[in-house]
């Protein structure tokens, strides 16, 4: 038996929990391949789900981390397109078969291993997700909803109490639910996959809390989420979200299942998960009106469901959305008799049912956190633990644990009133303002758990100890001890398992709080999946009020310092909170009291008041009459009348006018070329440019390039090149140019953060930005080669000022040689995309298919975006966002000409007359350093450009090195006439280039002396620009609104790209293959963890000299 299958199958816990690294690090390539074969057969044949999944994760890890390390650098083999297509369509078994076949034919290669790693990983997570889905559907009480596909079989009826009008109004069922905070965290042990495999390790201490945001008004904390349900005399399902200011009358079942069509997806998920509209009705073609008739017992009647979140911003890490979902589900289940009590709190059996339905709702809506998230349904403080599956459970024989955990409410005899009060008096809850996607972290945690890597596994065990200590400290009411434990948990296990749970913002905040409060600050407490959003700080009770008044200013200050570097969604806030001892609870409002919250009427009443009275239904008429009375008599309706008048007669919005003014001003200041813009816009509208037109002609011959056609630097290049390079460096002949104009669209999903100064990772004990890493490498090179290497950062309208401020604040990170900022001289205004381009992108180009539910949500969202583009006007200027988000840099081709236009090159030559070459690289190519051998190679070739390429791995998308109609050149992915060609290209453009200044000036028709003549330079640049192709691209841009909410919208922009220079006959280019660690680019935050684990981070750190920083 293979060593690794033995680990999986071992009866001994110690062996079963041993990491694979021990076996893999010692093994030869042949042994690893044999292990892979054994694991592959094992995962195909074993009956136990988790053993199979573990084998798959082992396989993914071997192909991602261990095998490539042992293969020669640069070994390349084409990834089969067929396999890649299977991968995109989530047909993982077929993809694996295809990649394995390629491996058999061509031998092991880094590229094939990268594809196999992705496919095995995908299959592992698909298997786990399917198991959770199966369990959710199989829970008793959930199954019937998937069978109910016909209205005649519809079994639910509304509670009679809801059907009887009083004073002209139908009663309102009002549910309110606290949110949950997690005292212990326990290493994300509430992830379903973990709880189902390791129930004994899945434990959290979870507290239900009421909240209010501290904003000067002294409102007492109250349940943060509310749901309302009532009968209406219209045959529709009316869904209203008061806080999102959105309402819709759903009149067909299809609309009900269309989650992303509007902002009411959560309400729709609740309607379905509660069984009000059973899941089996999806696509059944049945009539919603008939269903409502059956439900209410009368024709022409419907249901209205209203949700309200009491000012708690998104990303609070308090599971607001899951508890809102649970709140809505509870109301719907009470109304339909699935929960026996119509009002008051719930029984334990009902709470479990609601939790199961909330999991179902999250799955339907394509989201999902952990099993503790619906903790707000339960009252007070409770211990939530994984449960081992036993005979009779649907999970028995499949997984070790059940899907649903057990909840033990810790009553007063275990945690006294005094201890509760102490917790309330010590803890300050905040929202730090950052909003991040926790999804990738949850996958990382699962993967690391299955791999049992030593530090992470030990971290998990330590987290268990801390959990016990927190429970004990909680029992004893020792908040100082709780603070010490939560701080240790954050510093130790949490960051050992997932370093990315921390960030510079949080650590700075903790540091400054400690400075301000000294020993009175007992500890930091991370809430939920990662820090930066919802967080807790534990203080000595005597200092809590000072902390409450200090923290908002402190957080705001730090945010201000970092807001260009770190993605913030909102201004930080501090909450007041109180432990909630009821859990979810409902009231039945009757008679004149049966009104919805005042904010509902502010949203809904204005259009009703504009209508003729005879157009209103009797219930609506009665409601408006009662509302009028409430405005005079009820405290909570105070201020309604002015708000209604404001809605009925809105005055001109000054802020919108400001935005328009700012944008025009920005365009003027940054050299916006309106003539060029109008030409591009006209071309786009007329279809002369667009995604389809980016490609070269279909008859273009695109061929792969053999290794013999390029220089291979993965084998030692020879001492003479290094000597040549060193000499030139000693003569100060080189400057480094880091492209820093971009806003990291993929890095922060369009949040508009300056990527260059994003403190992305801890290296050598401190958070480092991309910019600092590049300077540290150049510093090391300066020292090693006794050179003075000027460093240029090319900037854009968005990045210039923040980078300048960052450098000033950090004293250039102590870099001795000159640092120049080359300011962008061109700017574009984004455009609303053309529907045909959106369709082309989503329907014609290969796209990663998502999990079934998530795909449905994505498709629904895309149809909404198509509508949005049509409504906004295809091809019109995109101005409906903050001004900075409406602009775009016009592609990195302009970055080098900008250095000519803005005088940076002249300035450099003036201070460093020996300067002859530039090393150009992307801001995220962290391994690119001043390598004397490569520099020597470039010098000896005499070429204008020496372009560094890497062997393609699966994630390298966007073209590569090709022979195009006979000429060796870099080709952009956008320009490839057939997408299947991309994977056949063995080498990928790392974006790093060595540039001869003299030859570059020749190309532009310039020389050193003419650089001082701006007219001549401008003419030269325009002439060159006209020869470069223009690409239309679609980028995601975030539009922020409300309290931390974000919409992601696709917008069109145009770009010219530097790689296309190699297509020009007179541009002589040499291509050199470099090791992956040198050419690797970090485009996506999800790449960080593997980058850290595969040794790339250590490699980069070894290239740096931090001493000056």
């Amino acid at each position: 038996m293979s060593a690794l299958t033995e680990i999986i199958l071992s009866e001994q816990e110690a062996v079963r929990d041993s990491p694979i690294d021990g076996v893999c690090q010692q093994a030869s390539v042949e042994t690893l391949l044999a292990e892979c074969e054994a694991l592959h057969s094992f995962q195909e044949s074993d009956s136990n789900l988790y053993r199979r999944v573990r084998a798959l994760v082992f396989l993914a890890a071997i192909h991602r981390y261990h095998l490539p390390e042992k293969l020669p650098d640069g070994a390349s083999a084409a990834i089969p397109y067929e396999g890649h297509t299977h991968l995109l369509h989530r047909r993982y078994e077929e993809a694996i078969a295809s990649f394995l076949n390629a491996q058999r034919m061509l031998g092991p290669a880094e590229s094939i291993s990268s594809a196999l790693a992705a496919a095995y990983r995908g299959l592992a997570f698909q298997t786990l997700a399917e198991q959770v889905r199966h369990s959710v559907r199989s829970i008793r009480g959930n199954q019937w909803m998937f069978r109910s596909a016909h209205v005649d079989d519809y079994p639910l009826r509304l509670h009679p109490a809801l059907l009887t009008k009083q004073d002209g109004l139908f009663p309102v069922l009002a549910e309110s639910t606290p949110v949950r905070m997690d005292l212990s965290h326990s290493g994300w042990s509430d992830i379903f996959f973990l709880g189902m495999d390791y129930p004994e390790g899945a434990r959290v201490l979870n507290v239900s809390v009421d909240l209010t945001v501290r904003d000067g008004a002294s409102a007492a904390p109250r349940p943060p989420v509310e749901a309302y349900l009532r009968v209406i005399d219209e045959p529709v399902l009316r869904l209203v979200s008061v806080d999102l200011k959105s309402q819709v009358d759903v009149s067909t079942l299809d609309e009900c299942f269309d989650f992303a069509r509007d902002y009411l997806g959560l309400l729709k998920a609740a309607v379905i998960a509660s069984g009000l509209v059973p899941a089996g009705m999806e696509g059944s073609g049945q009539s919603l009106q008939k269903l409502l008739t059956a439900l209410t017992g009368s024709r022409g009647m419907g249901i209205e469901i209203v949700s309200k979140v009491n000012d708690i911003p998104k990303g609070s890490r308090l599971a607001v959305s899951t508890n809102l979902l649970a709140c809505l589900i509870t109301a719907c289940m009470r109304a339909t008799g699935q929960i026996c009590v119509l009002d008051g709190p719930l029984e334990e059996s009902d709470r479990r049912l609601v939790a199961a339905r909330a999991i179902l709702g999250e799955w339907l809506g394509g989201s999902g956190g952990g099993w503790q998230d619906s903790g707000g349904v339960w009252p007070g403080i409770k211990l939530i633990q994984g449960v081992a599956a036993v005979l009779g459970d649907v999970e028995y024989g499949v997984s070790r644990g059940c899907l649903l955990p057990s909840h033990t409410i810790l009553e007063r005899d275990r945690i006294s009133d005094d201890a509760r009060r102490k917790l309330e008096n010590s803890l300050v809850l905040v929202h730090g303002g950052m909003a991040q996607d926790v999804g990738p972290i949850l996958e990382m945690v699962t993967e690391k758990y299955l791999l049992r890597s030593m530090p992470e596994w030990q971290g998990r065990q330590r987290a268990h100890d801390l959990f016990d200590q927190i429970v004990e400290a909680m029992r004893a009411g020792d908040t100082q001890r709780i603070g010490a434990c939560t701080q240790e948990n954050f510093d130790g296990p949490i960051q050992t398992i997932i370093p990315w749970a921390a960030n510079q913002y949080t650590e700075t905040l903790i540091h400054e709080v400690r400075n301000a409060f000294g020993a009175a600050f007992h500890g930091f407490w991370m809430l939920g999946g990662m820090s930066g959003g919802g967080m807790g700080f534990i203080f000595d009770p005597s200092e809590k009020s000072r902390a409450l008044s200090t923290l908002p200013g402190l957080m705001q200050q730090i945010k201000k310092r970092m807001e260009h570097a770190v993605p913030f969604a909102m201004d930080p806030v501090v909450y007041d909170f109180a432990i909630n001892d009821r859990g979810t609870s409902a009231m039945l409002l009757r008679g004149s009291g049966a009104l919805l919250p005042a904010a509902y009427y502010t949203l809904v009443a204005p259009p009703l008041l504009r209508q003729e009275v005879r157009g209103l239904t009797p219930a609506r008429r009665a409601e408006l009459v009662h509302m009028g009375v409430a405005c005079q008599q009820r405290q909570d309706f105070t201020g309604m009348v002015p708000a209604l008048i404001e809605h009925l007669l809105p005055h001109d919005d000054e802020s919108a006018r400001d935005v328009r003014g700012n944008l025009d001003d920005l365009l003027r200041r940054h050299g916006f070329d309106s003539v060029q813009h109008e030409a591009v816009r006209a071309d786009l509208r007329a279809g002369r440019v667009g995604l389809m037109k980016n490609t070269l002609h279909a008859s273009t011959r695109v061929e792969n390039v053999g290794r013999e056609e390029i220089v291979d630097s993965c084998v030692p290049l020879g001492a003479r090149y290094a000597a040549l390079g060193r000499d030139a460096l000693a003569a100060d002949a080189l400057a480094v140019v880091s492209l820093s104009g971009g806003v990291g669209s993929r890095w922060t999903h369009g949040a508009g953060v300056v990527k260059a100064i994003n403190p992305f990772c801890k290296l050598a004990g401190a958070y480092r930005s991309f910019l600092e890493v590049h300077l540290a490498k150049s510093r090391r090179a300066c020292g090693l080669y006794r050179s003075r290497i000027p460093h240029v950062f090319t900037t854009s309208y968005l990045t210039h000022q923040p980078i300048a401020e960052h450098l000033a604040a950090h004293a250039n990170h102590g870099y001795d040689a000159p640092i120049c900022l080359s300011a962008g001289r061109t700017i574009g205004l984004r455009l609303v995309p053309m529907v045909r381009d959106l369709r082309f992108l989503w329907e014609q180009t290969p796209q990663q298919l998502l999990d079934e539910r998530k795909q449905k949500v994505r498709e629904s969202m895309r149809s909404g975006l198509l509508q949005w583009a049509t409504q906004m006007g295809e091809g019109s200027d995109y101005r409906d966002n903050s001004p900075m988000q409406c602009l775009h840099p016009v592609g990195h081709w302009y970055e080098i000409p900008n250095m000519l236009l803005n005088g940076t090159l002249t300035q450099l030559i003036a201070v460093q007359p020996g300067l002859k070459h530039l090393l150009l690289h992307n801001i995220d190519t962290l391994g690119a350093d001043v390598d004397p051998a490569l520099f020597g190679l470039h010098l000896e070739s005499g070429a204008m450009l020496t372009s560094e390429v890497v062997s393609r791995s699966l994630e390298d998308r966007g073209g590569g090195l090709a022979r195009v109609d006979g000429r060796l050149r870099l080709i952009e992915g956008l320009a490839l006439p057939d997408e299947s060609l991309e994977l056949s290209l063995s080498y990928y453009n790392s974006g790093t280039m060595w540039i001869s200044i003299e030859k570059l000036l020749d190309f532009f028709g310039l020389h050193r002396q003419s650089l001082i003549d701006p007219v001549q330079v401008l003419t030269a640049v325009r002439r060159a620009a006209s020869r470069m192709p223009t690409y239309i691209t679609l980028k995601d841009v975030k539009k922020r609104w409300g309290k931390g909410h974000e919409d992601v919208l696709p917008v069109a922009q145009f770009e010219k790209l530097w790689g296309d220079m190699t297509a020009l006959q007179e541009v002589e280019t040499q291509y050199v293959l470099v090791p992956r660690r040198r050419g690797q680019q970090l485009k996506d935050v999800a790449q960080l963890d593997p980058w850290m684990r595969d040794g790339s981070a250590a490699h980069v750190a070894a290239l740096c000299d931090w001493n000056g920083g």
Partner: protein
Amino acid sequence: MRIKKAVITAAGERQRRLPLQELVDRDGKARTVLAILVNDAVRAEIEEICIVVRPGDESDYLEAVPEQRSILRFVEQPEPLGYGDAIWRARNFVGGDAFLHLVSDHLFVGCESAGDTATALLRLATAEECCVSAVRPTHESLLRAFGAVSGQPVSGYPGVYRVQSVLEKPTPTLAEQKLVIPSLRAGHYLAFFGMHLLTPLVMEILDELLRSGATSPQGAASAHGSRVTLSDALAVLARREKYLALEVHAERFDLGSTYGLLTSQLALALSGQDRAEILSLMVQLLANEQLRPLETKPQ
């Protein structure tokens, strides 16, 4: 155990007039629903029948059963206090005897007649000396109209279950958690057929429940509010003594539902001597162009 008594409840607000409706029975003879039910009970060798009625209804009911007046006794339910209370009103009539209980708003038709079903219940109850309820596999969408049971099959007695719990009008959510019986099709549960063979203990339990002012934990979400139901008593009974359910194959028709009377009449007629005539009548109706809804008439 000697069973000679039956109790028929007819005091419900919804069911008061239903037993007085006249139908043509399977022999082609016009009879009231009550007469048909009484006849079925008599075929099961019942000798004395108590009908629980609303005050003032007795004379109408007597008239509805001209042939068997002598075996009928009447008990009034002064106020509409629910199904449990209605049965409890017959406690003096029942005395210490076991009795057959039928509901008056359902008609039982099928290959085995209602009399056969009652006889089967009587035989089983006599042999096992316990309560027996007739049950029928029922789709979850119809559970809102019935009480339903969970139970274990009794080996050696096909179609007989030892009842473990009883729920009144459960939602499918509750049914799926509490009432699943592995041998039934998915989404089907054993729901009451409307015919029970009850021991005197049921009366004792009803007495306890009603006198203690208990409310129905199961009825709170239903139209009956929190009034005690027979299911509440049977749920207690199942915990105290042996209680069996017998799966029957006849059909039951709810006379109070929309088209309930019509469907019951058709079912009766199709199971009797006039089957061919009724079928031909139905075919004529189907073929009649004039009876099509306007919007589906051919152009």
